[in-house]
């Protein structure tokens, strides 16, 4: 479904991605791990077409993201959900308004149905009672949950999670991972999870890929990953 082929990207002469190749099948959840600043988030932004590669390609169902423009790119993006590291909630809107926003703007549902679906999604992520709070009035974990509800409300086929547990305490971090797992079971989306939550994330993914020095250093199932002897992988997995 998603195919990343020999992806290169530099910023001011600093080559962050040096030939990343990775294939993700439909319905698969892949964990992307690696040291801070190794280019995981940059890779995610290429997948969704927010960044253009210097060379190489990202194809989604055979369509090259870097070649798409205008309506074609917008159409493909509508199949994505993206959970940003900081949530990226609209800070002038309440939790309910944030979750209802894509429905109001992208569908012709009546306001009654919009309200019903938004409330159901907010309930699914365990935020009932916080519908009318603003992002500045809720905790980091609640912001992630609200952002997750907003990204799921349009029933995306592909979900990208950019460090969903960063900055959260271990209990809340585990709760977010369990929530992602539950959503995957409910919606069967294809997903990439960029995370440092190791080995916790191994329970909810089918594949793990590790980026090191701009390339995919190791790739395999969680079980295979735990048995890799590569020193860099061992140092990371523990």
């Amino acid at each position, binding site marked *: 479904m998603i195919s990343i082929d020999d992806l290169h990207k530099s910023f001011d002469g600093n080559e962050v991605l040096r030939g990343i190749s990775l294939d993700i099948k439909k319905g698969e959840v892949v964990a992307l791990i690696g040291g801070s600043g190794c280019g995981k988030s940059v890779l995610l932004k290429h997948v969704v077409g*927010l960044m253009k590669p210097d060379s190489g390609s990202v194809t989604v169902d055979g369509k090259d993201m870097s070649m798409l423009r205008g309506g074609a790119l917008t159409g493909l993006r509508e199949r994505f959900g993206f959970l940003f590291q900081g949530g*990226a909630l609209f800070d002038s809107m309440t939790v309910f308004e944030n979750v209802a926003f894509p429905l109001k703007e992208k569908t012709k549902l009546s306001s009654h149905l919009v309200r019903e679906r938004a409330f159901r999604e907010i309930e699914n992520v365990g935020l009932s009672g916080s519908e009318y709070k603003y992002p500045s009035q809720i905790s980091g974990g609640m912001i992630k949950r609200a952002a997750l509800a907003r990204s799921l409300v349009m029933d995306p086929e592909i979900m990208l999670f950019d460090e969903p547990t960063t900055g959260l305490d271990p209990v809340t971090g585990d709760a977010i991972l369990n929530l992602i797992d539950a959503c995957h079971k409910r919606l069967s989306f294809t997903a990439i999870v960029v995370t440092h939550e190791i080995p916790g994330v191994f329970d909810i993914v089918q594949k793990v890929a590790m980026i090191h020095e701009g390339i995919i250093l190791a790739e395999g199932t969680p079980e295979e990953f735990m048995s890799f002897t590569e020193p860099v992988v061992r140092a990371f997995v523990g």
Partner: protein
Amino acid sequence: MIRKLGAVTLGRLRKMGIMGLFLFKAFFYSVVPPVKVMRVLKQVHFIGFQSTMVIMLTGCFAGMVLGFQGYNSLRQFGSDAFLGPAVGLALIKELGPVFSAFVVTGMAGSAITAEIGIMRISEQVDALELMGLNPYRYLVVPNFLAMIVCMPLLTAIFDVVGIFGGYLIGVKLLGVSAGVYFGEMAAYVDMADVMEGIYKSLSFGIIIIWVCCFKGYYTGIFTGFGAEGVSKATIQAVVMSFVLILVWDYFMTSVLF
């Protein structure tokens, strides 16, 4: 050395190109539906209504200063009867559009840059794009249309209050006849002068919203990241707007009128 100079020049040209393209897109999405009408009205309230009191205050004092200075200068030539036209023409053709533009830049333009800048650095603009929504339609076009509506109206309010300020000083304090003040003004200020002021205020409004939205939209790309990036973007937006307003004012006055 030459290579460095070339790189800087190319960088500037690229930035100017991006800025020009930004203005083109703002115009394009303003005339091609759908337009977010409620957001436009909200911005009309923000830019227009919230600036009105300050516009009236500055307009009144600008007119009062003109009343004093105009009277003192004209009296030396025995021409104090021309105080009305002097105040009216100065306000309608120059001071009204320019002062109003400065006030709106300080009050609304800077706030718009900061708001869009914060949305940019906190990835809210990216979130809009990833929802398949066009950020221009949500962030730029409503401000653009609201400014086109508000700027001439605010300038008109500034002019009227300024003329009243000049009246207070010239007529009520310094003894110029009210009939002479308004009569001579009506004789010397014609519709072409009023239209000149309106054209200027409209173009100043476009300059302000173009620069302020652009600086906010490209926070983190041209002005550094985080709170410092937003701060730099806001300062640059205000300074660049002021300079462009004065340069464009000179150009319009010397070439077009």
